């Protein structure tokens, strides 16, 4: 049963991660291809602080703050770029962050990674901790979901959509585009930091190898598969992707063909991205579906 708990926890963490990306990609139209950087910053901050003896909730809060600040820092230069160049800049930023984790051994222990990251004390340790951790994740995911939905339907969310649809119109209507985008990225980064710190406290071990381009592609897939700009889309996408990954373990594949699985999985992801872009760029859940009916 713990295995199912494990999958659920992973899926929930990914759902938070995907929702944070959706805030930028779906609502503000910012194609952040380096979102994993904030996930990683959150994970490392939280892990380092709680290893240093800080209570876990405080560490998680600091993780969110740190990720948010990193997001703000990235915005200042990167938001001057538009569209795909913003994407490339963020992608490169994420690689730089990963190389920082890898090489600044005094801080992050470099490739050795950080083992033994504690879980919140009230969650408990060992096997008993799993259901409690699931509850924690569920609580946080639901709060994030409600929060994101609240933001999305608020005038702020509407202003973000205006920026996404037409920056010139937004400016002509008196919207400070730079500031709106910055706030979207910071909010997205804070939530990504939360997801990252959850991840760190769940897995209890992190190393720079966990925060590569592959993770970005995975979470990007979650968002575009589920439906960007929608509330349920990223959650659905995260569950679909995580469950798909785990389902592969149950395929009766002969041991000597085992090495084929990961590439096949990668091919499926790549193909999924291509097909979604070709057939249904808006994802499974469409942002405009409801209005189309009337």
């Amino acid at each position, binding site marked *: 049963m713990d295995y199912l708990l494990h999958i659920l926890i992973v899926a929930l963490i990914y759902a938070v991660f995907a929702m944070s990306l959706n805030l930028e990609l779906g609502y503000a139209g910012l*194609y952040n*291809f380096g979102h994993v950087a904030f996930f990683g910053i959150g994970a490392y901050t939280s892990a380092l602080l709680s290893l240093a003896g800080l209570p876990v909730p405080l560490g998680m809060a600091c993780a969110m703050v740190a990720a948010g600040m990193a997001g703000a820092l990235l915005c200042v*230069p*990167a938001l*001057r*770029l538009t*569209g*795909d*160049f913003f*994407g*490339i*800049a963020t*992608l*490169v*930023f994420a*690689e*730089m962050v990963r*190389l*920082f984790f*890898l*090489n600044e051994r005094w801080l992050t222990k470099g490739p050795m990674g950080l083992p033994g990251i504690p879980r919140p004390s009230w969650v408990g340790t060992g096997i008993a901790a799993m259901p409690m951790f699931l509850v924690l994740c569920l609580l946080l995911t639901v709060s994030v979901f409600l929060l994101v939905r609240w933001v999305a339907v608020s005038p702020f969310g509407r202003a973000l959509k205006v920026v996404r649809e037409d920056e010139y119109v937004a400016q002509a209507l008196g919207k400070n585009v730079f500031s709106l985008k910055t706030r979207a990225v910071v909010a997205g980064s804070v939530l990504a930091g939360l997801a990252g710190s959850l991840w760190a406290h769940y897995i209890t071990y992190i190393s720079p190898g966990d925060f590569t*381009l592959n993770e970005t*592609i995975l979470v*990007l897939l979650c968002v*575009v598969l589920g439906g960007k700009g929608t509330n349920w889309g990223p959650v659905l996408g995260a569950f679909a992707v995580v469950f798909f990954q785990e389902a592969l373990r149950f395929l009766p594949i002969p041991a000597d063909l085992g*090495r*084929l699985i*990961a*590439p*096949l*999985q*990668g*091919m499926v*992801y*790549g*193909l*999924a*991205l*291509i097909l979604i*872009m*070709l057939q249904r*760029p808006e994802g499974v859940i469409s942002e405009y579906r409801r209005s189309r009916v009337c």
Partner: protein
Amino acid sequence: MAYYAQLVLNGVIAGSIYALFAVGLTLVYGVFRFINFAHGELIAWGAYLVLLFALPPISLPLYLALIPAIAGTVLIGVAQDRFVYRHLLQGHRITLLIASIGVSYFLRNTLRLIWGSDLMTYGIRPVRGIQFAGLSITPTQLLMAGTAVLFLVILFVLLTRTLLGKSLRAVADNMELAAVMGVPMQRVRVTVWVLAALFAGVGGFLLALDTNLEPAMGMTNMIKSFAAVLLGGAGNVWGALLGGLFIGMAENIGVAFFSPGYKDFISFALIFLLLILRPQGIFGVLTGMR
């Protein structure tokens, strides 16, 4: 002193390969206005296809294996366009970029599926470098630099002396006008993909000849070549050449001062800075192609 000279020399040679890749990226960007993320996979496929034809059961000598391999790479390049990008050109550029990330992921994993993640080699015996004025250069490195120069010269001739090349530049300059004048658009777009794939494939082969083959070899090189593209001003072929040389030298010389763990960091930081300092320069497409 010789130490730094050697670093520069190595940088120049690495840079000439980056330039080969950058040219393809720049051509595609110039004509279709999107960053083909899957360009790196053309590099890797070029290298691996040579291996396919050079190993049993086909067992061609390397230079002969190169021919079908490059043909195969070109086919992949054209297929990318035919099956994916062509259908998306009307839409948003981001859709294209995500699709090209998908293509890249798909192709790289196909490579893994066939050849595995293991490091491969053409099995060339290591040869002592030729010593010259305190510098050392291997025949392979010479071949790399020579081929890069040769191909860039061929490209120059093609773009400035042939009607097709001029059409290509015309399309990059003003696609609508080119269509009005009856420039054969279909041929031009195929040519762009053929050229991009050709340069990537040949570059990939040279890279593998010099070092080894691994599935992610294209990915890292593509990102660095992108730095070269930006440095030279997107679309500018000679800019890409200079940009490639600069990136190659920067990361090689950087090792003398930083931890080698930060080798990639240098080119990434350079991309980041360039994007931010010269966001306008990026759009100087195909200027100075002469």
